[in-house]
């Protein structure tokens, strides 16, 4: 029997369709892998074996009945713990929601169920998606399968690590400032932040509502496209959902033709502060793009230099408002309710006990930035920077079809290295944040290993609003050329777990 955990979603789909394997067998192979390695990786917060196998059996029964099956039917998936799943734990990596069981499903979960995808469990994340290393999870860090002493990126480190550890072929992440793309980069996997509004946010526990976007993660560009198409599309339950048909991402991923495509190299996102090995692999990828027939030009987006500062005002402002609902009254943790404390005291004690240090820092920054006397200087100015960043993107996309940069300035760093240095941690997202501020879309895909440490490097592709299919066209072609060069998938070079 083929090693089921090494198969792509597309390969599993073919095997399932041909009747060579059952969804039950595929689920068992992945659950067994999780049982074998996740004690060391800690990609998952919750795995419900019985529930997963029952779902797989339902999918097998449906196929046996002769019903029409979707392309991902029976393929397993790891779900970031920030998406509500009815009756299942949904902790957001926080003590605040340790015992919460949502009474409803996120729209993304409904779509996965409708596509007969088999959800394996919920993945670890920085608390309420605030972080770039998954170290801010209240349940302990996730370890990078390439080197267990290193971080897997964040906030969606659990989802990315589950792919790199062959615990799941598909995963869902969410990306507010890079939480899909940066983990993909440092684990040698693929991740896409779709255009804002392309995937419903209903049931996604909000961090910063104008920046949050759920998206697909996988080990190949084509698998990512298959998952993108399963979850994207209009949802009346999300007032910011885009009401337009979804482009054919899978066809774009398979096109493998870059002739005439104009690729902009963003000057501000590749020089200072980027690790030498990251720059080297990026420059090689640029040369490869040229050899594939693309026209690579340099573009300048000067206001990107202010993106990080604007982001760390806008995000905390929105987060401080969104997280005000966790007050211990109707659900979640309640602390200090001893009959003596007033409701306000109980709220204060509950929130101090339920939130970790990074969440508390951001709530206070946001409260400060929105307070009278400081609002114009901080939040107001940050919103103007947002306008300038949109203008820079608009100008760049008048001459370019897509833009590229390294996804993250460094490869995976050591667990603990930046834990108590918020600014150093924030710099991880320097190349990914502009995309969230402007609302367009971005992909990260692996382009090799940095020579100095042997760890994966990611390339970011950026496309305009609703240009998500261009990500897959540019990503699919580069991936095919790299695989031809290497003769294997990059994860074949990762040490055995």
């Amino acid at each position, binding site marked *: 029997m083929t090693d089921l955990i090494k198969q792509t979603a597309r390969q599993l789909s073919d095997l399932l369709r041909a009747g060579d394997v059952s969804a039950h067998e595929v689920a068992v192979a992945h659950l067994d892998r999780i049982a074998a390695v996740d004690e060391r990786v800690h990609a998952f917060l919750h795995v419900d074996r019985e529930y997963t196998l029952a779902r797989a059996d339902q999918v097998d029964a449906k196929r046996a009945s002769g019903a029409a099956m979707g392309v991902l039917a029976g393929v397993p998936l790891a779900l970031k713990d920030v998406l509500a799943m009815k009756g299942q734990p949904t902790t957001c990596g926080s003590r605040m929601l340790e015992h919460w069981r949502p009474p409803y499903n996120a729209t993304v979960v409904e779509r996965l169920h409708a596509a007969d995808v088999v959800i394996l469990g919920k993945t670890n994340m920085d608390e309420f998606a605030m972080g770039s290393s998954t170290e801010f999870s209240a349940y302990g860090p996730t370890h990078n399968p390439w080197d267990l002493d290193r971080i897997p990126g964040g906030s969606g480190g659990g989802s990315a690590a589950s792919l790199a550890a062959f615990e799941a072929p598909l995963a869902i992440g969410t990306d507010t400032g890079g939480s899909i793309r940066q983990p993909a980069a440092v684990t040698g996997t693929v991740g896409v932040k779709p255009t804002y509004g392309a995937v419903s946010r209903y049931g996604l526990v909000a961090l910063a509502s104008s920046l949050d976007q759920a998206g697909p993660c996988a080990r190949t560009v084509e698998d990512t496209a298959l998952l993108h198409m399963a979850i994207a599309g209009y949802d009346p339950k999300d007032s910011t959902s885009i009401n337009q048909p979804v482009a054919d991402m899978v066809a774009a991923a398979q096109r493998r033709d870059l002739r005439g495509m104009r690729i902009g190299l963003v000057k501000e996102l590749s020089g200072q502060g980027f690790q030498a090995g990251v720059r080297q692999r990026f420059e090689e990828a640029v040369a490869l793009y040229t050899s594939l027939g693309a026209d690579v030009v340099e573009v300048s987006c000067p206001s990107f230099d202010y993106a990080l500062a604007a982001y760390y*005002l806008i995000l905390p402002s929105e987060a401080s408002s969104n997280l005000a609902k966790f007050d211990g009254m109707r*659900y979640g943790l309640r602390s200090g309710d001893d009959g003596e404390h007033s409701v306000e005291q109980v709220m204060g004690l509950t929130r101090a006990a339920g939130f970790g240090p990074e969440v508390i820092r951001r709530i206070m920054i946001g409260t400060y930035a929105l307070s009278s006397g400081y609002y114009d200087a901080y939040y107001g100015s940050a919103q103007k920077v947002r306008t300038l960043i949109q203008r820079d993107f608009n100008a760049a996309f008048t001459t370019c079809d897509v833009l590229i940069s390294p996804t993250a300035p460094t490869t995976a760093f050591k667990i603990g290295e930046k834990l108590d240095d*918020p600014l150093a941690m924030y710099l991880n997202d320097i190349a990914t944040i502009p995309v969230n501020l402007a609302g367009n879309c971005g992909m990260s895909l692996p382009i090799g290993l940095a020579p100095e440490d042997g760890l994966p490097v990611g390339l970011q592709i950026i496309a305009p609003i609703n240009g998500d299919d261009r990500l897959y066209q540019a990503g699919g072609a580069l991936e095919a050329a790299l695989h031809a060069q290497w003769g294997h998938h990059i994860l074949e070079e990762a040490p055995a777990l």
Partner: protein
Amino acid sequence: MSGITRAEVAHLAKLARLTIDDEHLDHYAEQLNVIIESVARVSEVAGDDVPATSHPLPLINVMRADVQRPGLTNAEALSNAPAQEQGRFRVPRILDEE
């Protein structure tokens, strides 16, 4: 711009309903100052002629038909309550004693 004082941090914690002890307050004050100092540069870049953007997409008010639809049952709504009584959420006392 001058930094945040410890008293200001204590006030922010109160506004945000976070009960933080004195020792942690000092640590947070130090870190918030570093962060605020580094993000304050946003005020240097855009002039009065640049409009603010609060959202990536043009937002329109989305309405749904005003018709009945199923919602959560009482038991479902209370299923995650930290405390409940007679089918309602039970909360700590709301009025401070004078």
